[in-house]
């Protein structure tokens, strides 16, 4: 049995490295994205093998699913922009702009021109990367074989945290800073995207009855799963980020199926949903500090309830933020009212 496990793990590790190489080496961007998604799914499997189901869930949902969707929609936009600029300049090669042959040819031309310089650069790069790899290998090899890490401290103090899942205890209580800052980073990323120039809508082809039906069947189920992941996070793998990304998946599905928020939800309700996670987190932290504790210190008596409160708000914010990132530019009412399809679908 152990031999079989070694075999499986070895195959998994080799496949991961091969996929990563293929992703980086592929000149075709679409192929690279598909390989990246496959890489993410296998990575989730690797996390399962390492007994880290929490990370596996996050990797599958965010790393493979949502990042893959974001990359695909970015590629679609890139191609659309390229087609547009090509159309204005000359009418040919509209769709071949990001084709593999193009970049290969350019690289070949560059190689011929500066082959010596290029080679020197490559060899020095290989040398430097080898040095980094050797350093990393040394660091890994010099680790003690059995390091307890902080898991014992966490286990000893788990009763103070208000939850029985050590991962949630660390993320929301012992190391609340990290989660707080992660959510701030997510919000900042969306602000960055929103301050860019608006791009034209990408999904102009009608979604068709099958996608419509699929979204109608799956969205309620996704909402249920998000709620489940949020609730179960207190004692088993799950939590705000996983639940939020499932919520975002529902949003992405609705967006693909042509649903849009009605104008009346685009103002403060959307902004409210975007910031409520961070707002609740910061308010709880400040209230605790003002009532005599430290920033982000949760009193054991209410810790469980407070964590659930923070995570609920965080789930909503993470879900809406990720779906909004997928939508891309800031939604505008006039554009919405023009293509309004159904009776004002909520975006999550």
């Amino acid at each position: 049995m152990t031999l079989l496990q070694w075999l499986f793990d070895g195959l998994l590790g080799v496949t991961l490295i091969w996929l990563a190489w293929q992703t980086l080496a592929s000149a075709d961007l679409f192929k690279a994205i598909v390989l990246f998604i496959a890489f993410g799914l296998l990575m989730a499997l690797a996390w399962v093998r390492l007994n880290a189901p929490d990370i596996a869930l996050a990797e599958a949902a965010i790393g493979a699913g949502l990042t893959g969707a974001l990359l695909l929609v970015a590629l679609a936009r890139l191609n659309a922009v390229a087609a547009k600029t090509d159309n204005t300049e000359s009418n040919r090669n509209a769709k071949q702009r990001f084709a593999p042959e193009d970049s290969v040819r350019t690289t070949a031309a560059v190689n011929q021109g500066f082959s010596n310089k290029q080679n020197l650069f490559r060899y020095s790069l290989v040398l430097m990367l080898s040095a980094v790899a050797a350093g990393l290998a040394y660091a890994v090899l010099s680790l003690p074989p059995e390091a307890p890490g902080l898991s014992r401290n966490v286990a000893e103090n788990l009763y103070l945290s208000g939850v029985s899942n050590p991962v949630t205890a660390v993320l929301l209580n012992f190391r609340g800073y990290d989660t707080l800052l992660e959510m701030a980073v997510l919000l900042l990323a969306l602000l960055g995207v929103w301050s860019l120039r608006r791009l034209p809508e990408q999904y102009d082809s009608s979604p068709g009855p099958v996608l419509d039906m699929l979204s109608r069947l799956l969205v309620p189920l996704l909402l249920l799963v998000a709620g489940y992941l949020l609730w179960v996070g207190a004692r088993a793998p799950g939590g705000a980020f996983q639940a939020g990304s499932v919520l975002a998946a529902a949003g992405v599905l609705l967006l693909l199926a042509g649903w849009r928020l009605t104008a009346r939800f685009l103002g403060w309700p959307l902004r409210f949903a975007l910031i409520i996670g961070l707002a609740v987190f910061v308010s709880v932290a400040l209230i605790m500090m003002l009532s005599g504790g430290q920033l982000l210190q949760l009193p054991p008596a209410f810790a469980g309830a407070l964590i659930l409160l923070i995570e609920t708000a965080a789930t909503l914010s993470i879900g809406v933020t990720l779906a909004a990132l997928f939508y891309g530019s800031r939604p505008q009412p006039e554009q919405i009212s023009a293509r309004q399809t159904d009776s004002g679908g909520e975006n999550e």
Partner: protein
Amino acid sequence: MSMTDFFTLLLLIAGAFFYIAGTVGLLRFPDIYSRLHALTKADNLGLGLVIVGLALQAESLTVVFKLILIWLLVLLASASVAHLVARSAQQKGIKPWTR
């Protein structure tokens, strides 16, 4: 080996066979439409067999229901996605392969 174990083994091997058949079809079939056909049909049947094989080993009914739910979800997703991929291929003007 008990009777249940035997049937589980049989079902898992049959499931793996259909997965292999689907993968061979994906690699060997001539165009996108026939590849989709191989992938979705054979893999769904393979997954169904694997699910039934695993359900025989389940400790409780809840697990059985969860396994069946997984199968139904994959059926729904793969059927819809196969349709969407084929539709977009057709809209792009990819002609089905003919001998």
